[in-house]
Structure formats: structure tokens, C-alpha cells
């Protein structure tokens, strides 16, 4: 059995939206393991993004504890959270969130500038199949290409965990598959613990383990006996 990377116990998250209180998470227990590819599946509003943000150190739970390799993240202060993100986490977002004024290579360098033991930016872009488009600006690339730059940016620091929030949400099947291919390759070749959140059930077929969320709770956890490759997926 592989080592535990994340262990969350009884986490809840309550947002105040003006006078309304929104319960995004209501007592979630979950563990992610070393080298594992997990898919968090749920509809919008199920709390999956909130869970990912908490695991990534972008947000803190209202109640409950989260440990990262045995360390209590809920006790981290602001600068420890920043340090944690800087050293351990790679993010991929639905809308890529590239800096439009920087080229593909420069967007990756944004991360390699501050990482301890980064990959070369060119190498990272090569891993996602963009070795030829180093000096293009985001506006000169397709959505799929932009998302692959975002993946290259996320993995360039050689993170311990790769967290992807609807990475194919804004893409068509063809480009979506190319992006998932890149994520799968990183997980396989670099052994990076990977969590992908999506509302697309098809993507769950490529995971080691699928965690279903609805209404802020985990409703089901399933282990895939046989995983599909990214290029076998279709939706």
C-alpha cells in the first residue's frame, strides 16, 4: 500500500455570501496516496473545487483537519501556505489562467524562477508536446495548446501533487484528450500524485480511484479495476 499524501478528516467549509451562508463542504473524509491518479467527480456546486482549493492550500476549511505527509495544514499560517504551494503543488485551471503578456516559455519560467529544483522550461513544454511553440503568446495559441502550457507550468517545478480543476472544461473532445494525455504522462513518467476534478464521468475511467461528490459530501468511492488510456476516451 502506497504512503498517504493527503489525509482530510471531517472538513467543512462555510462561505458567507452577504447574508446567506453557503455550506460548500459538510464533513468530508478523504485520503490521497503517493503516485495515485484520482478523479473527483461531481456536478457544479458539489463542493469539488472547494475541496481541491483546500488541498492546494488556496483556502482553509472552517472545521476539520487536513494533513500533508503527516503535517497539519490547518495549522499553517499565510506564509507557510505560500511556501507549501511554492514547493509542493502544481495547479491547472479550467480557463488556463496564463499571463497574456508572457510567452509560453515565459509563463513556465514564472514558476521555474521561484522553484527549488525545476525542470527546464523547454523540457516541460516538450513533455506536453509544445516544444515547437515556445515563443508564442497565449493569444496566438488554441485553447488546448494554452491548457497544455498551463500543465507544463504546473509540472515544471516537479511538484509532489498536481491538482487540476476542470482541465478540459473549456475544450472540445479532441483537444481535451490531448490535454488528458499530457496529464496522464506526467503522472506515469514523473510519478506525480494527481487529482483531477471534473463533472465529466467519462474522464473518471482513466483514474485509479474515483471519488463522487454531491452537495458537499462524498457519496461514493470507486476503484477502477481496469483503467482506460486518455486516447481511448470519448464524449
Amino acid at each position, binding site marked *: 500500500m502506497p504512503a498517504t499524501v493527503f489525509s482530510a478528516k471531517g472538513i467543512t467549509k462555510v462561505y458567507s455570501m452577504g447574508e446567506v451562508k453557503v455550506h460548500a463542504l459538510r464533513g468530508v473524509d478523504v485520503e490521497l496516496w503517493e503516485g495515485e491518479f484520482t478523479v473527483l467527480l461531481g456536478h457544479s456546486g458539489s463542493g469539488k473545487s472547494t475541496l481541491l482549493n483546500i488541498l492546494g492550500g488556496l483556502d482553509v476549511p472552517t472545521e476539520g483537519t487536513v494533513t500533508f505527509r503527516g503535517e497539519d495544514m490547518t495549522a499553517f499560517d499565510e506564509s507557510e501556505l505560500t511556501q507549501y504551494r511554492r514547493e509542493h503543488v502544481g495547479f491547472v485551471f479550467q480557463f488556463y*489562467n496564463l499571463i497574456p503578456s508572457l510567452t509560453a516559455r515565459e509563463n513556465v519560467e514564472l514558476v521555474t524562477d521561484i522553484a527549488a529544483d525545476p525542470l527546464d522550461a523547454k523540457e516541460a513544454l516538450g513533455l506536453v508536446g509544445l516544444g515547437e511553440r515556445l515563443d508564442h503568446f497565449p493569444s496566438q495559441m488554441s485553447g488546448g495548446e494554452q491548457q497544455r502550457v498551463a500543465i507544463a507550468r504546473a509540472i515544471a517545478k516537479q511538484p509532489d501533487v498536481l491538482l487540476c480543476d476542470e482541465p478540459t472544461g473549456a475544450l472540445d473532445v479532441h483537444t481535451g484528450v490531448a490535454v488528458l494525455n499530457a496529464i496522464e504522462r506526467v503522472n506515469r513518467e514523473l510519478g506525480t500524485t494527481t487529482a483531477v476534478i471534473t463533472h465529466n464521468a467519462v474522464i473518471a475511467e482513466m483514474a485509479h480511484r474515483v471519488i463522487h461528490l454531491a452537495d458537499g459530501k462524498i457519496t461514493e468511492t470507486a476503484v477502477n479495476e481496469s483503467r482506460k488510456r486518455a486516447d481511448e476516451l470519448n464524449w
Partner: protein
Amino acid sequence: MVSSLDRKLLRDLSRTKGQVVAIAVVIACGVAMLVMCLTTLKSLENSQLTYYDRYRFAEVFALLKRAPESLKDRIQEVEGVARVQTRVVEGVVLDIEGMSEPAVGRLISIPETGEPVLNSLHLRSGRWVEVGRPGEVIVNEVFAENHGFKPGDKLRAVLNGSMEELRIVGIAMSPEYIIQMPEAALLPDDKRFGVFWMGRDQLEAAFNMESAFNDVTLTLLPGASEDEVIRRLDGLLERYGGVGAIGRHNQISNRFVSEEIQQLSAMAFILPTIFLGVAAFLLNIVLKRLIALEREQIAVLKAFGYSHWDVGWHYLKFVSVIALGGVALGTLLGIWFGRGMTAMYTEFYRFPVFGFDLDLGVIVIGAVVSLGAAFLGVFGAIRGAINLPPAEAMRPEPPANYNATLVDRLGLRKLLSQEARIVLRELGRKPGKAFFTSLGIAMSLAILVVGNYSQDAINYLQDFQFRLAERQDLTVSFFESVTGNAVNHLTSVDGVIAAEEFRSVPVRLRSGHLSKEVGIQGLVPKPELFRLMDADENVIPVPDEGLLLSAKLGELLQVSVGDVLTVEVLEDKRPIRQLTVTGLVNDFAGTAAYMERRALNAFMREGSRISGAYLKIDKKLTDEIYRELKETPMVASVSIKDAAMKSFQETFAENLLRMKLFNIGFACAIAVGVVYNSARISLSERSRDLGTLRVIGFTRGEISGILLGELGVVTAAAIPLGMGIGTGLVYLMSKGLETELYRIPFVVNPQTYAVAALVIMAASLICGLIVRRKLDKLDLVEVLKARI
């Protein structure tokens, strides 16, 4: 190696270059003004001091009737006195070929061999006077230039009753007469008043002053008390007809020059404050917008481990680049302007030394103040970026919160078009931004008002002084007071329409520890020619008894109506008596004191005596009148109002108007900076809304109307606001530039307001049209695709 974040910075700057340049220019204007004023101030002060030092300008000055030269040793023994110089100084009437109007001269003794101990001369051409050559003089350069005199030229003068020929052998300047002011005059007169230096032996012989002197100047030992030396000197000179010694700060030429130089410090404060305030506001709105646009980028940076401070520092660098660019440009401009201005003043004052002191401290002040203002301006915006929680920033910004406007609540919405309602709600949603935009535009309008105000003030002052108050054509002064009937002699001169006599007495007014030397002017009971006017243009009647003071003089002595002053007369028997202040006049020039003439005679315990008269003449007979006056032995000087008006124009008009062009340029920089930036930001914030409107069928004209309508409302609101602020600044300016010698009236002509408003509307319109062109190019599909 440039980091990626710095590369982003450079590209952000280049993408927003229009706005960046506009803001940097506003900062540059403020810095330029500050650097220009402070370096000029410092340079001129240094040049002035160097000049004084090199030519041994005295520190204490005293006039007396006549004292034996042996008194000099006793003066030298006074504790604190360093060097003493006695002189013979005499007033003469000049007769210059080709000049009909009378001119007066002051002859000052110099040693025939060797330089004077104090108040030396800077010889510009020719040579020093020589022993045993009668009539040789050195003339002051300004006067020589006004008459085209060269060494070798001759003129005639009445020396002690006899006409003598003066031969010019040299042309020189002196720290004592940087500004040549005839006695009792308020303004320099370089054509009708000349200073000459003559060998001491000759001057003594001509005025029966052998082994005697009537003027003494001295310097002080370091640490000596000027007041104490003056007190003891006055004691020594009292029985020799001393009229009270004065320190250097009261010496008329020095005071005039120093006060004018000091006015630069008033300018160094007011305008840069406005510019840097506006720049701070512009940086604030631009940076706020930039941070709003980059909300998600900030979130990504933080998600990848950039700390809050890394992000804050990134935006602070953006601001610093703009501010430092402005500082660099402004410093260069300021040095350039400052050098020009210093050269101009140096030439104006004829300092023989030109020193341009570029003080590093001034540049540091400029940079620190500008960066400080910039950082203060963006503090809130950057704090916003620092505090932005990454998870929250990842979600798109919530829709802006709009409320029903006052117009909606009053149920007037039917009166407004759809576009007008959008404009009003937009303004209502961000009233702070709308207010500050208006305020920024208002500031540029205010600067224009201030710029034109100097012209208004000068016109008004001239009209007030020379048409309302002084209605005489000539002022005749006698050598000594004469009997009151003498005025009849003047009235009988052909061409003299009216004459009004006056008595003037030099005095020292004392109130407690405060004192001030002035001349009391005794006027006829109901003057028609020389009228006393207050600042509201009311004629002030001459009181039957008691003393009427300039409000400024009252302020200096801290007295008001009803207070009693000790009056020390500084001529003849030098009585010391009391007088009651019966009125204060709000006048513009000088520090004057007035009495009824007969009351002054009574106070002096003398019969009917007069010192001169104001004349109204038939201008056709001017030359004849001048000739007649020149031949009248008791006439010491004649001052001509037209000449005074001209001198006034030259002295004040030039100096103040010089600033006018600067102000107009500066005001436009602000107006364009504010209008262009706010229009660009509105466009950026609203392009999605406006694109949507275009998609659903609004025309280009209609959406331009929405964007430019906002600008129009803000500009319209700025106009009255700017007029108000401008008026306030004019008030501050008139107070800031006020000196003992003159005050500047607080008047602004309607045209000044109108012109300022027109310039601002034009600037606003041009910027609006530039932004409108961008609006016309709005790519509807792209606009709708972008998330923000």
C-alpha cells in the same frame, strides 16, 4: 537575467504606454516646477551672497546731516563693528542732453586711490577716477545703458547750486544699487534716477564737507548683535542729524531683490503639490483597474507560490517605474528651466557672478516627494492586490452593484433616455471615482485660472494705482521743507492745471518692541490728485487729526485703530511724540503713513511748511514745464507718473507673466492626463457592456454617447469646481506673494474663468474623440468572448 514577472511588468507598461506617459508627464511637471524653483532660489541666493561678499557689501547703513571725520574712530570702537566706511552722499539734479524731463542723481564718494573699504564697485568698462581731475565720475551701468553713455561722455548736474560738468570715465555696478530706487519711491526708475561715484576730495569740496561725512556704512564681527550695534550707532549719530541706521535686510535694493527671490519659494510649494496630488489620483485609478483586470493572474501567481509581498512588490514596481520616469524627465526639465531662469534673473539683477548650483539635495527632495505621493496614491490598490485571497480571485468578479439613482427614486426616470440612465447609474455606482476625476480636471482649470490671474492682477493694480488713486501727472519734491506759499509758485507755471501740496517727514514709528522707519505724508484735507483709496475702491478721507496707516504697516507694528504710537522724527530737532492711529488703509503698495498736512505741521510744531506738490499739467506744455522746474532751485526731483507706470509694467508684468506660459502648458498636461486616463479606464471597464449593447442593436453613436456622456458630465461638474478651487488658489497666491513692498490684489476677471473653461472643454473633447476612435474599433465577438 530578467525574471518572468519583470518581463510581464515591461509588457504591461508598454501595453498601457499612453496612460503611463500621461501620468509620467504630470509627475514630471510637478518635479520640474519644484526643481526649477528650488535650484533657482538656491543659485540666486548664492550668487547674491557671492556678489555681496566679493564687493564687501556693508551690513549696517546710516545717513546723517554732517559729522566730523574724527567720529569714525568712535564708531570703529563700538563693540561688534568690523569695518567702517564714511562717505559723502549728495542728491543732484541732472541735465542730460536730449532729455527734457528732469532726472536726479546720487553722488557717492569713493577714494581716489585704491578700492573702497566697503561697497566696492565692479568696473564694467573705462577706469577708476583719478586724483586732481575735476568732474570725473563712474556711472551705474543700468543708468548708462538707458542713456547710451560710454566712458568719455559728459553730462551736467547742479552741485550745491552751481551747474557743473560731469565726465564719465567708467561704468560700474555695485551690490548697493542692484535696484536703483529714488528716495521715497516705491519702484525702481532706471532712466530718471542715476547713481554716480566721484572722488571723495572733489565731492567734499563741492558740498563744503571737508573732513566730514554724511553717510556711514559698516560690517559686523561674527556673532555681533546687529540691533545692539545699530542702537549704539544711532546714539553716536544723533547729535549729527542721524536719521536712524538700518540693517542690510532693510536696505532698499537688497530688500527688493531678496523679496523677489523669496517669492520663488511660494511657487515651489503650491503648484507641485497640485501636480503630485493629481498624479497620485491617476496612478490610483490606473492601478486599481490594472489589478481588477489581472485579478485571475494574481490568483495564479499566488497559487503557484508567489507570496502576497511578491505580488504587491510587482505592482509597486509598476508604479515606481512611472514615478521614476516622471522624476527623471522632470528633473532634467527642471534643471534646464532652472538654468534658464537663473540666467534670466542674473541678467535682470546684473549679478557679476553667474552660479548655477545644482544641489543634489533638491533632486532627492523631488524624487522622494514624488515617489511618496505615488505610493500614497496606490496604497489602497496595492493593499487590495496583497489581500486578494487566491481562491476567491479564481472566481470571476461578482457583478457590480448598481442602485437606483436619485433620479430613479424621484420618479424622474421617464424623463431620461436609456443611455442617460446608464450614464447616471455608472456615475452613481462609483461616486468616489467620478468625484476625483472631476477634481483632477478641476485642478487643471484652477491652474489656468491662477496662470491668467497674474495678468488680471497687474491690470487691476495699474488701473487702481495710476488712475484711481494717483491722478497727478508729476510729483515735485523740494530739497528741504519750504513755506506753504511755495505751492503758488508752482500753480503759476504755465501749463500747470492744478497743484496739491504735501509735507513729508521721515519718522520711526514705535509700538512696544516693534518699530519701523517710514515717511509720514501730510496731505491736503480733500485731495483730488493724490487720493487715498482702500482695496474696495472707496476714497478714504484724510482724518483731521491722527495717523492713517497702510493696513500692512498696522500689521507689522501690531496696532489697530485707537492705539497710540510713539513717533520719533528723524530730521531737524528730532522730537519724539505720540500719535493716535485713526484709520487703516487697505492699499497695495508700500508701507505708508498719512496725516492731514496742517495736523502734521502742528505735530512738528512748525508753521505752514511743505515738502513738495502733486501737479496736474497740460501735456502739450510738458517740455516747457520741465524746463521751468529744472530752473527752480528748490526743486530736488520730479517724478513722472507715466514713467512710473512704465517701470511698473517692466518690473512686475515681466516677472509674473513669465509664469503664464508654464502654467498653460502644465494645466493642459493635467487635463489631458486626467481625461485621457479616465476615458481609457471607462472604456476598459465597459467594453463588454458596450459591446453587448452594440450586439443587441445600439448604434456606434449611441454607445459613444454613453461613454462620452459620462466624461461630459464629469467635465461639466469640474468647471464650477475648478473655478472655485482656482479662486481659492488665487487667494493663496496673492497672500503668498505679498511682501512689505507691495501686495497683489485678489481679483479675477470673468474672461479668465471663461478662457480656462474653454481650454479644459477643448482638452476634454480631444481626449474623448481619441478614445471614441478606439470604441469604433471594438471587436464585438472578441469582447463577448473575454471573461472580463
